[in-house]
């Protein structure tokens, strides 16, 4: 028969008390109380936005969105414990977890859709409604649980205790397991921190814009690049604020598919601002009459090379002038 590890036989003592139906106790229904508390906490704290650190907000939001509403709804739908003879079709602890997850990510956005239809999709009414739904489902779960004999009522603590039964056997292996799990958690956490705290690869962007039809700087297109001879050069590297770069402008004559007679026609040094951006303009006033020529902008970190070439520049751009 399919089953779950929680399905342990009931003791005689439990059976004797199974017919007792009374008021809900906090100890037996702590799961519902905790769920309601998280929902209320979420509604209040997240609505007030008291500038909580991200980790704290995440610690509230993740269970609130992924687990809490669904858990109490499952509790309301299935108030009995799995494994008790009269309620063998009740979901196991694992099944409750999975269903809680699925129902939560259904209920939360559904509430959002309803709130959007009535008001607008803003956070406060959504959180308030999630709390209201959670508490209402929790009350239904409490009522349905208390209508069952005590031994048949679902108890999270009992289910968890059952899942960990036998944990005290062989203390050495148990100790090894706990140590391994802790090490694993630390490794995963450290890996997460490493993966999320990096600024990513430093990217140095170097690009040329001209004044577009609307007056703004645009990356030149076939239509815009010929309309103005003033070219704006931008260097961006957010990872390197106040970094210094040198731009060297060189020309060369295109002849027989090759570029000859290369000359340096200008050089300027730029310093990135705090956002890691620097711009400079270059007025295209070429005194050489050969055509077509190639105008090349070479970007260097700090000082340029003695003989500037594309190969020793960190970035380079090119404009062909017919």
């Amino acid at each position, binding site marked *: 028969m*399919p089953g779950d590890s929680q399905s342990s036989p009931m003791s005689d003592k439990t059976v004797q008390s199974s017919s007792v139906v009374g008021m809900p106790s906090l100890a037996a229904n702590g799961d519902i109380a905790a769920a309601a508390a998280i929902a209320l906490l979420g509604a209040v704290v997240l609505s007030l936005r008291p500038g909580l650190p991200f980790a704290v907000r995440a610690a509230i*939001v993740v269970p609130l969105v992924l687990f809490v509403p669904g858990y109490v709804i499952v509790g309301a739908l299935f108030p009995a414990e799995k494994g008790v003879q009269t309620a063998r079709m009740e979901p196991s602890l694992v099944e409750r977890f*999975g269903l809680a997850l699925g*129902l939560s990510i259904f209920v939360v956005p559904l509430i959002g859709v309803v709130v959007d239809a009535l008001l607008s999709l803003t956070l406060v009414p959504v959180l308030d409604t999630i709390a209201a739904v959670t508490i209402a489902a929790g009350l239904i779960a409490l009522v349905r649980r208390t209508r069952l004999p005590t031994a048949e009522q679902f108890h999270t603590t009992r289910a968890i205790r059952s899942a960990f039964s036998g944990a005290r056997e062989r203390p050495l292996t148990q100790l090894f397991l706990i140590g391994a*799990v802790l090490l694993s958690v630390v490794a995963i956490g450290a890996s997460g921190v490493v993966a999320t705290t990096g600024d990513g690869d430093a990217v140095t962007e170097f690009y*040329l814009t001209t004044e577009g039809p609307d007056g703004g700087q645009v990356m030149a297109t076939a239509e815009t690049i*010929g309309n103005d001879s003033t070219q704006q050069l931008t260097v961006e590297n957010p990872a390197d604020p106040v970094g210094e770069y040198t731009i060297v402008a060189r020309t060369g004559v295109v002849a027989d598919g090759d570029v000859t007679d290369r000359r340096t026609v200008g050089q300027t040094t730029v310093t990135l601002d705090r956002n890691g951006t620097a711009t400079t303009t270059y007025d295209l006033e070429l005194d050489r009459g050969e055509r077509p020529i190639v105008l090349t902008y070479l970007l260097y970190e700090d000082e340029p090379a003695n003989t500037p070439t594309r190969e020793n520049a960190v970035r380079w751009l090119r404009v062909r002038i017919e």
Partner: protein
Amino acid sequence: MVESSYGRLPVAPDLAIVGLGLLIAVVLFPLRFLSGQLFIQVLPPLIGVACLVYLAGRYRNVADPIGFDRRRLGTDGRVAAGLTFLGIGTLALVGATQGGRTLPFLAVSGLVGSAILAQILFLDDEALGVGLVLTQVLALAIVVRFTALLTTPGLVGVDSWTHLTEYATAIRAEDSLSAIAGVKYRTAPLFHVLVVVVADALGAPLRTATYLSLGLALPLATTLCYAIGNALFEERWALLAAAIFAMSDHVVRWGVHIIPTSMGLVFFLGTLVAATRLVNGDTRWSSYLLVGAFGVATALTHQISAFILLVVLGVGSAVQLLWPLLPTDTRRGGWLWPVFLLETGVVLGLWSVTPYHDSNFVAELVATVERTLTTSVGFLNLAGPDPTGPGGAAAGATPIGIEFLDALGFFALLFVVVLGGVAVFRRHNASPATGTYAVAAGVLTVFTFGLPLFGFNTFLPGRWYAFMYVPMAIVAAFGCRFAIRQFSPRTAMTGLLVLALVLPGAMAINHKGTPENPVFDEEYVTYSYDDAELAAVETVRETRPDSADPIYTDHPYRTVFERTGATPANMLAIEDGEIVHDTVVYRQYQSQGAPVVMIGNTSGKRQVSMNEVCRREMHRLYSDGEVVVCTGIDGIDGA
């Protein structure tokens, strides 16, 4: 074992199924001479051999049917679990230090997966702790997915850019769903609403919100697969089904490329849990409510997911109605057909008011099906989109050896699925619920492989895999159970050991499960971008005039330009051996990876050099060391 009665069938049901399997194998076998497609080459012999293995097991004289169960390894489950947890921790460190899911990471993940499967398959009953093993499965699933998510700048995949940077961003900006009133997700907004609500609650970007909500929900939903298995057979096999599901390539895919399909998969699992309860006899209103709720949730999330769910519920209803024909378990559970009709009504109702291509979704779907039937369909008409999607097996001239390695996990899974699919119909195994999963696995396979064989790709078969893996994982567990019971312990253990060693590693390297960093990165498209590539998109967005003509770059890079609203973008086209466009965006990937470009009238993967794309006579206006933007010379006057 000789059946004394076959009900209304002339032979035992499992023999009828195995006969059908052998017939399919024999009929499809000659296709290998007409098409070189890998699946056509491999599937017929694989199905045939699996059927023969089933027959060998069925007619084997089993002296000790529970011999395997009675063997004792004596291994402490907690020691095995502890070692595996250490492996999972190591895996996370490898991912962080390598900066992503590199080959060493995938190798370690395969080893850890094998360790988990070995525990499930070989530990003694007393040593097998459900909670411990399930925790390992979930931990591995989370580490695998989050290594991909956290080490990849931006988003993974293509559609994720649309759903987050377009739809969810618009909803968040307007505080209203009216922001997506004109798109088909107007009637399926749950994904976008969830992401927006979480982002607002966290005060975080949509990407972070997506990862902390659905990014976690996807691996944790493996518990639902366990729940299905637990309703059908013993814990060991439920764990095996859950582990196979969590490690499967396409399931991992939707855990890193998080879009409504991903969320639909969770609801699909939830519906199947509830439906299984129903069919197994829990006919209380709460079970009906549960299956109805998850069904509606699926319909409100994703159209294809809802369609797949309808197919499975339809299969379940048909199996239930036809089940009395079989000489098997005739226990009455709750009927699925009312649920199927309800879900059909909900889906059709929603689709009829869903805007799609200047019409509604139902009308457009019918028109598309008609169009496909009249224009594209034909036997072995594989010219349409490859069933495995863009960049898939048929996208270019991928060596068949690499294709085989890439699909090895699926083939290993399919082998045990065939075994289990037949074993389900043995009289003492059969129930409407198990029968439903076996038939559903077969029907979904037909939708995924059969229809594309005829050029019918309207139902986007690439999206069906992950859903198909649910019944496949269940039935595969059944296949392993059959092997253990029908073969000698030595034979069974050898076979299962091979499965445990091959499946996790082979699934891990499949390109669909590694969209952000495929192992064979010159054969399969990489659907992620580094910081330089994303910086270029952002700068182009800021500096490109609204009136500018489209830029040209490779697929999938062009999709990021389009879907982030940076600028219109088309695929690079090679015509007469040349690439001639006004404005092109070159990235190093075009020379080193598997970029897709237009070659004549069709798209295919082709590496191109920077000088081919950014020709010498063009202006070179942008460079960040990896990406270069070039434009034509027209308009320069040099004044």
